[in-house]
């Protein structure tokens, strides 16, 4: 290339490319018949260059940050560039190659050819309604190997030179409980890729091949430059932290999590050596899942608002020993891989918090507390399935209290289901949806988790759910106290028991039973004794803390008789 593009044209090409990724995201949302796609936004769309380098990506949830890059690269690796041709399209949900996450998340990869040359890939990945497996909803909390989790699509060519592979379609349909919905997901996903392809080809036509290719290089280059600029501002050195993953799924207890974070002027390295091995419970993730997690935490630490591309991500290195929890191999199960992916991000934050207090908050409730309540509705005789994540408390930051009730880090633009919608759709009554009053004390207080009670109004129902951090609560820092744990309690209608567990699998329930989801409060920041007395008094007035906690944690003493602040006792207690 001899002539440099003028900055405006280059910017215009870049913006048009990003708009194409956005449009793909929007098109899929609009055309999908699957509520998980268009309500929960559990999908991502992106574009890469001909080598599989991410150019731009649109997300609803954070989990898919690595999905686009590695899905495209997996196709390149398996088939070789020279064996791709116009009209091809590939599908993958293989966690152990590029796709990275659990089997419900299916990626589609479309190579884009301009005048016979492979120039880019359009890729999207989203949560399909159904992909088979042991139970409805296609995820479970008690699987022991991947084969129980559903149909595996290992980088297969679903369109071959424009010809749809009907045999594969039939295999997919035969392996799913709701084949029409699942194929609907596939068609909507394909249509969105086609939209992106035609936009991209328009851009090539409008600006010319060389100019667009130069812009692709510019985006990656610019991303790399921005990353280096931001890394310069970061604390340098090696940082350590450890934690424990404690879901108790399949009776697996206490898996040690360790990280060594090394930051230099041009690298951001996460070394998970010392973390426990993969287990026969669905709480492993593949190396590609770990790479997605690494991108989440890198983005959060380095620059939360910089556009995603592989130039920007180029400083990231992840070391996860073979067969460790974060580098599980076939056939280790990965159905609830959001739990390991979340803790692998959180342990990095824990390591970095003391050095970057302005960007890192104390620990949050950290679990998705993925929930399925399903059964056969007495009134209609049809199955009902409530499937939702729970929200919880976030940690306090260097200048603010933690947030009360937000979805966890692997979710994002994800909404909790309204009580009124829930009661209409399912034979359940929500008896309370309120703050869990216990959170980490601190100069800045941890945010409150939530309590959500479901009363079963049906003769039968089943409970499947998984919470981590049920023994080891979110961490406080800079003198702030730890938050509170997650738990799920089942109160039997006959009063025979009230049992609390982290993980429930296909637990039968009857009419009148009550399930209580309690999500943790976030960790506190800073010495509680430094919390301004007015803030403590406000918390008492708002019943966010009790008078007893005010005295014990904050050294703020309220006279029992008058209900007024005892200034002298407070002064003494705060010394």
């Amino acid at each position, binding site marked *: 290339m001899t002539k440099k593009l003028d900055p405006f044209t280059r910017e215009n090409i870049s913006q048009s490319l990003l708009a194409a990724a956005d449009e793909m995201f929007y098109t899929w949302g609009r055309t999908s018949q699957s509520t998980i796609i268009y309500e929960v936004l559990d999908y991502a769309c992106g574009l890469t260059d001909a080598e599989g380098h991410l150019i731009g990506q649109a997300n609803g949830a954070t989990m898919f940050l690595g999905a686009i890059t590695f899905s495209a690269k997996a196709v390149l690796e398996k088939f070789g560039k020279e064996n791709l041709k116009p009209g091809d399209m590939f599908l993958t949900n293989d966690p152990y190659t590029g796709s990275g996450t659990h089997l419900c998340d299916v990626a589609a990869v479309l190579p884009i050819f301009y005048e016979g040359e492979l120039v880019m890939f359009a890729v999207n990945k989203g949560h399909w309604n159904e992909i088979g497996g042991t139970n409805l909803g296609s995820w479970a909390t008690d699987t022991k190997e991947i084969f129980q989790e559903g149909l595996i699509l290992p980088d297969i060519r679903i369109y071959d030179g424009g010809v749809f592979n009907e045999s594969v379609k039939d295999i997919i349909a035969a392996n799913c409980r709701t084949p029409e919905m699942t194929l609907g997901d596939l068609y909507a996903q394909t249509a969105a890729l086609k939209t992106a392809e035609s936009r991209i080809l328009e851009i090539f036509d409008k600006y010319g091949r060389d100019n667009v290719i130069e812009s692709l290089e510019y985006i990656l280059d610019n991303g790399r430059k921005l990353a280096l600029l931001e890394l310069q501002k970061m604390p340098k050195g090696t940082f350590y932290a450890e934690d424990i993953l404690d879901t108790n799924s399949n009776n697996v207890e206490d898996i040690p999590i360790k990280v060594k974070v090394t930051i230099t002027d041009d690298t951001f390295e996460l070394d998970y050596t010392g973390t426990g091995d993969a287990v026969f419970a669905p709480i492993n993730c593949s190396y590609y899942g770990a790479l997605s997690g690494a991108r989440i935490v890198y983005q959060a630490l380095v620059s939360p608002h910089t556009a995603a591309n592989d130039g920007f991500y180029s400083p990231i290195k992840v070391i996860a020993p073979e067969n460790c929890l974060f580098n599980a191999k076939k056939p280790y199960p990965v159905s609830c891989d959001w739990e390991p992916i979340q803790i692998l991000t959180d342990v990095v934050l824990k390591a970095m918090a003391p050095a970057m207090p302005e960007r890192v908050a104390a620990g949050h409730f950290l679990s998705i507390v993925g929930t399925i309540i399903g059964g056969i509705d007495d009134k209609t005789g049809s199955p009902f399935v409530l499937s939702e994540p729970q929200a919880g408390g976030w940690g306090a930051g260097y200048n603010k209290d933690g947030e009360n009730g937000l*979805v966890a880090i692997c979710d*994002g633009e994800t909404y909790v289901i309204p009580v009124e919608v829930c*009661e*209409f759709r399912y034979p359940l009554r929500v008896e309370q*949806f309120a703050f869990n009053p216990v959170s980490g004390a601190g100069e800045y207080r941890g945010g409150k988790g939530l309590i959500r009670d479901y009363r079963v109004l049906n003769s039968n129902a089943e409970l499947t759910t998984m919470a981590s951090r049920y023994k080891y609560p979110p961490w406080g820092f800079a003198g702030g106290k730890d938050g509170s744990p997650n738990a799920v309690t089942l109160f039997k209608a006959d009063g025979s028991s009230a049992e609390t567990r982290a993980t429930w699998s296909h637990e039968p329930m009857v009419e009148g039973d009550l399930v209580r989801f309690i999500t943790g409060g976030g960790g506190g920041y800073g010495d509680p004794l430094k919390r301004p007395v007015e803030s403590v008094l406000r918390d008492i007035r*708002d019943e966010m803390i009790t008078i007893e906690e005010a005295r014990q944690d904050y050294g703020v003493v309220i006279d029992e008789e008058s209900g007024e602040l005892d200034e002298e006792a407070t002064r003494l207690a705060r010394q």
Partner: protein
Amino acid sequence: MTRVATDIGGTFTDLVALDGNGKLITLKSHTTPPNFENGVLNVIEESGLPANEIEMFLHGTTTIINALTERSGAKTALITTKGFRDILEIARCNRPDLFNLVFAKPRPFVPRYLRLEVTERVATDGSIVTELVEDDVLQCVEALKKEGVESIAICFINSYINDKHEMRALEIVKAAWPEVFVTASAEVTREWREYERTSTVVLNSYVMPIASSYLDRLDAGLQADGIFGRKYVMQSNGGSTTFELARRTPINLLESGPVAGVLGSAILGGMIGEENIISMDIGGTTAKCSLIDKGQANITTEYRIERTERYAGYPVMVPVIDIVEIGNGGGSIAHVDAAGSLRVGPNSAGAKPGPVAYGLGGTEPTTTDACLVTGRLSGEYFDNPVDLDLIRAAIEEKIAKPLGISCEQAALDIIRVAESNMVNALKLISVRRGYDPREFVMVAHGGGGPMHSAALARDLMAHRVIVPNSAAVFSAWGMLMTDIRHDWIRTHICPLETTPAAEINAIWSELKTKADERMHAEGLGDNEIQYQAVVDMRYQGQEHTVPVMTVDNWEDDTGLGLVESFHQRHEHFYTFRLDGTPVEIVNFHLIALGILDKPELAKIPVLEGEEITPIGERKVLYEDGIWRDTPVYFRPDLKAGFSAAGPLLVDEKTATTVVLPGQELMVDEYGNLIIETGVKRHESSK
């Protein structure tokens, strides 16, 4: 007889009036915070219109939205169902700022200690699970009196299906404490989703005292000036209501100014035979666009105040004309970001110091400044002498030097970036919602609409731009043409095909009873009222609904007849149809219109062979990098039937219209400027 509309904006209060002869009078006067009514009274006085001839007064106000954004509303409390006082603060738990670990979600308008619970419970089918404990309500009143609360909101779980407990609690509060402002959610909305409904009623109670006092003062001021005609205020649903009714549910007035511009676009379209319109309103700090499909503005109840891409904002679940707003207007600041890319907005220089051109000390280059440097705008219409050298120096220093380009190129690039941002917003409301812009014309208004719309329409592929007469005060013009309007939306989920017509008609007739009562309170007789019925429907198991027009009196086969309309509408919005999947109704929506007679607009003189000569020429820099000598016409000189080929400019005191090379200008009989953009018109295939 004269009718007058006044619209309060951030800087100016606009007036548009039509006198008995159909003559249009337009005027701008300064907005006068905090006593906004003074600006209204001033502009009426300046207009010289005789008070006793004003038979109708229509008004758009920013008082309500200001009270919310400035948090200057009343000390407000919430009374709710036991177990749910935290709903208002829990909200929907989403994190739109995906990677920000210190993200802050919206803070509630009612703190936790003022959110009280009472024992009561209604089930999802409307049956009573637990009777309301009336004494709990009285105890709440006592507690809130002690706290010195000024206003109360009441919202109970499932009150959308049965409001008995809520209305009883309302009665008890009113009886026990007659002075306090109080609203029950059922008075404002009967749609489901408890957080959104609670937020709506809380915000209504929060602004009630302020709205009431503002409307009282305005009313008193108008009466003192001898204006005793009928007085209406504009609502976000695109219709107006009396002052009296506006006091009860002021949350309906939130977007009263901006929606009037959209409504005006629809009405103007009706006058000149265009029913598919994109309304583009470019002001000082923002650009607002909205789409009108076959004469109907899109109404949504998913409006949120303060929402951005990274912040959830606060839901207001009342009918609002759907408007997409972006931070790009004449005062938007251009800058070069850390990565060396040129950005324009969303920060604005505002009215003070404003663009460099205002000479009020502004040093940051804005879109307006770029328009001066490229010759699109002339300095002679500014209130102050414009110092072009100062503007060039600002662009040179802040943009041209860092990018290594010339000052002129930088100015051109600022305009291109700003326009490209606006085109993206326009795509949001059109292409992304399944509309083909080639089937639409753009109505350009606001101070900056005429400046940019020729380029915007061309890039969006809309074939025609209309720059209305009085484009700069177009919202006030729209108000003049308004009808009285009220909406009733009721969530009641039932299967479309199998629900007996009697069950459905029971809902319609309940809504109609309420509507009649309200319309009579507006002073309307039965023959002045029109009803429109809409049902929001969806495929069973899905969430998103699609509105379909129907009638408010069903026969046995009406439901069956709607099935195909629903499939078609669904396919239009979502690209697919699920034949064979059961369809269900989610919301019943009754629109009541009180038709006010419309004034006749005067026509402008027709060209009769005479020559209209430009008042001068300006050198204008176009996107191809070429400076062209461009003729400048003066808008008041133009006559109906005039046409000319671009490039050309049309100046008027409050705006300049740009017509690009290759485009064509025509003037219609009402004095509207019509620009053919060179894009081929595409007739709707549907």
